[in-house]
């Protein structure tokens, strides 16, 4: 194996891993805090990209994309709150909340996908890259936008980690995730935190969509593939741990890059699935998860 190949695999794995980490951390956040699995996360990602596309397209200037990103992310926060209010909040007391919210978030997914198609049409779209041009990274040439993702992802996730660790709201979110009843007892406003968590997760999804939307093409269903990957990652990392999720994202990114290089792109997704099943059979709590009991 030449150095060229090693660097190509590493760079490819880094790009994939960064995207997965952004995507999966939003999913994992909602799972840890609210105990639900949001199947609409992928469509939220698509929605964020379309918001940004509309912003930049309406303004017609790259210059405005920065503002567009802000507006789009703000829009996503609103959408997140709306979703939490309408399809998740009513079921908090339900014993079958896991299954019911699988269903309601699936419904949201269908609603968003079809709505996007109705509003923006089915034709492919692409965002102007935030960073144009190409960059040589470890001897492998990739687009500057992908480099931006590689650089931005750890910063964003680091920011998220600091926020969860040191801010009052962040500590509240973690407390609720660990023990909602106890959190309520010590005076945490659980209901407010649930909304905040969902809004934060939606914003993360939207941001991922915006970053990815200038590397890949935007379609109403372009969140589907990253969603499936994110699901795998959250499981791999072990449910309920953000750092585990992020670590798993990068591991899966590199594993996928290695698989693509050595097994070929054809069987790489299948092998990832098989790997997932195998890991779960050996360690039902995930790679970094602690035993439930």
């Amino acid at each position: 194996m030449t150095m060229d190949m090693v660097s190509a695999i590493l760079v490819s794995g880094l790009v994939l891993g960064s995207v997965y980490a952004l995507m999966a951390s939003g999913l994992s956040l909602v799972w840890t805090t609210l105990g639900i699995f949001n199947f609409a996360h992928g469509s939220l990602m698509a929605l964020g990209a379309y918001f940004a596309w509309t912003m930049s397209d309406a303004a017609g200037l790259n210059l405005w994309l920065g503002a567009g990103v802000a507006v789009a992310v703000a829009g996503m926060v609103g959408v997140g709150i709306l979703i939490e209010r309408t399809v998740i909040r009513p079921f908090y007391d339900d014993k079958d909340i896991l299954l019911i919210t699988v269903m309601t978030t699936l419904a949201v997914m269908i609603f968003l996908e079809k709505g996007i198609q109705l509003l923006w049409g089915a034709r492919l779209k692409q965002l102007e890259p935030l960073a144009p041009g190409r960059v040589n990274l470890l001897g492998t040439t990739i687009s500057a936008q992908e480099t931006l993702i590689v650089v931005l992802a750890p910063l964003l996730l680091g920011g998220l980690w600091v926020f969860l660790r040191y801010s009052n709201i962040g500590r509240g979110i973690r407390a609720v995730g660990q023990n909602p009843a106890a959190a309520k007892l010590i005076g945490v406003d659980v209901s407010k935190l649930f909304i905040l968590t969902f809004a934060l997760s939606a914003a993360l999804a939207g941001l991922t969509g915006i970053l990815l939307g200038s590397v890949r093409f935007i379609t109403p269903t372009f969140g589907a593939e990253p969603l499936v990957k994110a699901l795998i990652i959250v499981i791999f990392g072990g449910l309920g741990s953000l750092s585990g999720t992020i670590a798993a994202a990068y591991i899966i990114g590199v594993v996928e890059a290695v698989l693509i290089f050595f097994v070929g792109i054809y069987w790489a997704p299948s092998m990832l699935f098989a790997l997932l099943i195998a890991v779960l059979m050996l360690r039902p709590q995930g790679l970094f998860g602690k035993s439930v009991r």
Partner: protein
Amino acid sequence: MNMRKMGKWGLALLAASALSVAFANAQEKVAKIGVLAPMTGGAAADGNEMVNGARLAVEEINAAGGIAGYTFEVVVGDTQDQAADTVTSAFERLAGDRDINVMMTGYASGSNFEIELMAEQEMPYIISANAAQTRDIIAPNPDDFPTVWSISPSYDAYETAMVPVIQQLLDGGALELPNKKVALISSDNPYSKTIMEGLQKNFEDAGWEVTSADLLPFGEINDWRAFLAGVRQAAPSVIINTDYLPGNAATFMTQFLEQPTKSLVFIQYAPSVPEFLELTKDRATGVVYNMLGGVLDTPQNPRAAEVVEKYKAKYGSAPGVYGPALYEQVYLYADALAKVGDSTDRLAIGKAIGETEKQIAAGVLRFDPQTHLAVQGEDAIPIQFFQIWDGKRELFYPARYATEEFQTPPWMK
């Protein structure tokens, strides 16, 4: 005006309108055209174009007073994601309408299984894609399918025309290649795979070395770098990608240009889709693709420019393949109806369609009675080779239709 007077007026008006309706009915019969199209789901863009093309022709014909006492009307059956049950539902819904005695589509399903449903009901059916599937179903017993016709010709030329065209470019000095190596890549769908396998055989027979022939899973592909890394090692002078999805093709081009090799790049079908040019912009300059049954837009075939212009004028954007295809399909039906005179005589209509010989946007259309496909060839539906240059598609082969000369792509200079 008092109430009584108004009542009287109303009554008179009602009578008049009833009369006029009756009169109109006596004079105008309605021939509804069932269009099977994916109006929802991932292929909705194609579906909308199909319906647009059909509506364009129908409005023209109706504005000109209809055909044989009939006015036309388009009824759309949504095939959604082309799953067998939704396609059958759409078919049954249309077939249940007694005024629908013809159906047409760009493509309705991946397998064309609906051809058999059409044949059972002797429904005239005109289709413009998936020629290989159509042939597989019809060729064993062409007499069982008297009403089903494909305006898309056999795809064999996709496999056989490539090597001679490259050879011709080399001989004419328009192209210089350092070696006789070719790298092939395809996604796992019957269309792309068949073409790649055919190309591999044809290249090998002509003494070329095929450095790789890779198969990718069908669907969205975001990473061509593994393939391109192999290409850089083998340095073939021709790279052929037969995956036909425009998004994939655009990604492919972008990633190829990150570290280009001095190779001629050929991409199947995708560059003909409007958004490919929008997405790749100047990055596509130099890319070669070919087309069977596409619009033959050349001064020798003014029909093509006419159809494209009409479409643009009405819908504000240039059509791909399916807009003009459905436009022509409606006219094929109109011609057959004019000949037969009775829309319910399905067998006669089907037979009349099969006897067509006319100039259409894609070339000269006549059908092969063995396969029910359009006949392929330079004097029929020709295979066309294009090169993209500055956001435009330049036709460079066959020479008699060519609008522009082939040029060496910028990355090869």
